[in-house]
């Protein structure tokens, strides 16, 4: 840790950074207002599933925003980042208009900067720990916007730099699943000289980045460029490969794989087990979003169908619920309604997503929870019976518990219901590794510092360890697992 501090101080003291710091008085920096990102107008963006809502920053905007950063002696923002990006360094590179250098800095720490700049909840991470917010009670530096800017600038410049990798050490390792935790793991291991293969069960690489998060938040083309980057570094990808089914761990060990990182995620959708939940027209958010985002069911030349609804109810209050409800609006719903059992304040979705949803005409029905669905004559869902709630005492999560109001039941006309109440860990990997220690929640038990499981050569991270969490936490796990697996393999096979 002190090594890292020394390195940061050393980098902070290079002459160009000292000059840059001294070139603008601190009070001029703090007088600059935080940049506002341009957004496509709601009435235009809801016409398309692929039109990205946030437009990104111009070079001019980025330089001005970067100027706000004080280049702190003790940059607390870094502590707020799960992958510990050297934030002041890349921000100051943007201020100095060395945009490609800023992109290179990001890639030292993160395998997916263009993704994280878009989907990280920065308000709960790096930006929450910004000097502006902590010490001056002002709006923090827009670190997420700047990260996105640098990554987008590099992509659009056509001068994509492939990060340097160490000479190959001939040791084969595998990542299972190709979501954010595995990609981050793979990026770090390839830099350390390992031979890395990422195994994916679906026909596309990217996990939730492809099947889950819609294109209006994260274009698939942006994800693909980041994947090309990993391919360029030498990461090998195997699609249509279910580890444990297509080949067993034993088979892979015979092929020379010395260690495994399990990043198979929490893909198993939860249902509420209420009457009528298996009616046609009731589906999981995973099914709905997969049909649209991965299978392009909304496009006329796709063979995969998706059910359309005029009155769509989405059950839940997280980011997935927001993604599903906003997708339904884009697919032509007249009414798209969020049904959430607590109040607006308790919603786990990002504030930005809730704001965007509201602008797009999404209706919010808070303090209500479905208790039954009723069919029409054709057996398709037609009505949702909703129990009204009020907030009681805080529960274990610290949020006020929703309590049913006796007898207060309303009926809502619906023809499509999307259930987005959370996911459970995918049981495929644990099922084929009986020796692996699991928690009672069905997640893999790991040492929290090393991400190593009860089977020494198996490390794990992301949602298979945490249950449903965020992209950047998954990436942080991948990084930690890579560092610790490196130590484990060096001790076992090199020394």
């Amino acid at each position, binding site marked *: 840790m002190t090594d890292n501090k020394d390195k940061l101080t050393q980098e902070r003291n290079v002459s160009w950074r000292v000059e840059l710091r001294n070139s603008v008085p601190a009070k001029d920096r703090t007088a600059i207002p935080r940049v506002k990102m341009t957004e496509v107008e709601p009435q235009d963006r809801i016409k398309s599933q692929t039109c990205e809502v946030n437009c990104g920053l111009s070079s001019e905007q980025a330089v001005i925003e970067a100027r706000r950063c004080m280049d702190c002696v003790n940059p607390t923002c870094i502590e707020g980042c799960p992958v510990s990006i050297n934030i002041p360094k890349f921000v100051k590179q943007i201020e100095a208009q060395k945009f490609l250098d800023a992109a290179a800095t990001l890639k030292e720490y993160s395998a997916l900067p263009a993704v994280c700049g878009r989907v990280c909840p920065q308000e709960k991470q790096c930006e929450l720990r910004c000097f502006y917010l902590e010490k001056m009670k002002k709006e923090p530096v827009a670190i997420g916007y700047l990260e996105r800017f640098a990554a987008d600038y590099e992509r659009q410049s056509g001068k994509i730099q492939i990060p340097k990798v160490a000479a190959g050490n001939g040791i084969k390792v595998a990542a299972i699943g190709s979501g954010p935790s595995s990609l981050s793991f793979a990026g770090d291991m390839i830099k350390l000289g390992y031979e890395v293969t990422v195994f994916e069960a679906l026909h596309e690489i990217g996990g939730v980045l492809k099947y889950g998060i819609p294109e209006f938040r994260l274009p698939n083309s942006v994800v693909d460029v980041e994947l090309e980057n990993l391919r360029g570094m030498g990461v090998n990808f195997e699609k249509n490969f*279910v580890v444990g089914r297509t080949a067993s761990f034993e088979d892979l060990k015979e092929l*020379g794989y010395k260690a495994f990182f399990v990043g198979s995620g929490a893909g198993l959708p939860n249902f509420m087990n209420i009457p009528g939940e298996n009616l046609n027209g009731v589906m999981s958010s995973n099914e709905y979003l*997969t049909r649209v985002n991965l299978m392009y069911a909304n496009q006329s030349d796709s063979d995969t169908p998706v059910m359309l609804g005029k009155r769509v109810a989405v059950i839940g209050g997280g980011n997935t619920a927001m993604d599903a409800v906003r997708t339904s609006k884009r697919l032509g719903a007249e009414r798209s309604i969020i049904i959430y059992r607590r109040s607006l304040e308790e919603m786990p979705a990002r504030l930005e997503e809730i704001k965007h949803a509201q602008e797009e005409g999404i209706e919010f029905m808070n303090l209500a929870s479905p208790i039954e669905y009723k069919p029409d004559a054709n057996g398709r869902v037609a009505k949702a019976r909703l129990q009204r709630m009020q907030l009681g005492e805080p529960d274990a999560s610290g949020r006020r518990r929703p309590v049913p109001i006796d007898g207060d039941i309303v009926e809502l006309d619906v023809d499509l219901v999307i259930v987005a109440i959370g996911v459970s860990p995918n049981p495929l990997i644990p099922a084929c590794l009986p020796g692996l220690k699991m928690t009672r929640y069905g997640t893999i038990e790991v040492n929290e510092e090393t991400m190593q499981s009860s089977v020494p050569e198996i490390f794990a991270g992301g949602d298979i360890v945490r249950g449903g969490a965020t992209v950047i936490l998954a990436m942080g796990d991948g990084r930690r697992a890579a560092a610790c697996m490196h130590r484990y393999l060096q001790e076992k096979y090199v020394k």
Partner: protein
Amino acid sequence: MLVELAGIYSLLHCRLLSGMKSLRLWLTGMNKIIEKYNLSENVAKFIIEAPMIAKSRKPGNFVILRVGEKGERMPLTIVDSDIEKGTITLIVQNVGVSSGKLCKLEAGDFITDLVGPLGKATHIHKAGTILALGGGVGIAPLYPIVKAFKQAGNRVFTVLAARSKDLIILENEMREWSDEVVVMTDDGSSGRKGLVTEGAEEFIKREKIDECVAIGPAIMMKFCALTTKKYDIPTQVSLNTIMVDGTGMCGACRVTVNGETKFTCIDGPEFNAHQIDFDELLQRLRAYKTEEDQAKSKK
């Protein structure tokens, strides 16, 4: 020359299978259609190169495949496999857009995506006397189960049923692994005229049946289940629900078994027939009827 090449090729394959080459090489050339046979006007049999699936699969497992970049993910049961040649056998009936696209492929073509083996394998054991009931193209997924039960030392009676002669497939193969085979057709064009349940009841009345397995259209399985329930014979069916990913991720394939929601792709596809809510299953199979009809008329 060709023979020589084939020899080198299979030698190479064995080496690859024993792990002497890198996995990269091992996977190259996968999903190639080696042979294709048209079993009838609308039913085709494919021998596909998929060495790892061939090695790992067990009776009852299925694959998901996709034809073309905008293709749909479609589940199909693995009918047979040849570990030495590294191939699997699939049989598909042309009933819609995706199966139509697959049926148009010929030997030498590649299947865009192929993943498996998926689903739980059939519980094969020595039970005594097995009654196997296959309806239409459901005869294909029934075949590996009949073969495995026979190899496990059971007596196997098989009833093959379909609308007409054209749709009775694998009759010779079934005879090879069954002690007795009865063929039933709706129109009497092959075997006897009548329904699968009539053929089943004849065996049930004649012999003590220890277990039954039925695979075919949902409505056929429903009536098989009602029949065997009457005689209290434990019965397994293999469900053909709508699927998307086939790995437990979406729940499109959910079904009510004994009052609980199960996912066919990971909890099944085989379930205790007497516990299934068949009416719900039939309803859910019709979920995309309008879209399917539209797609068919478009292409």
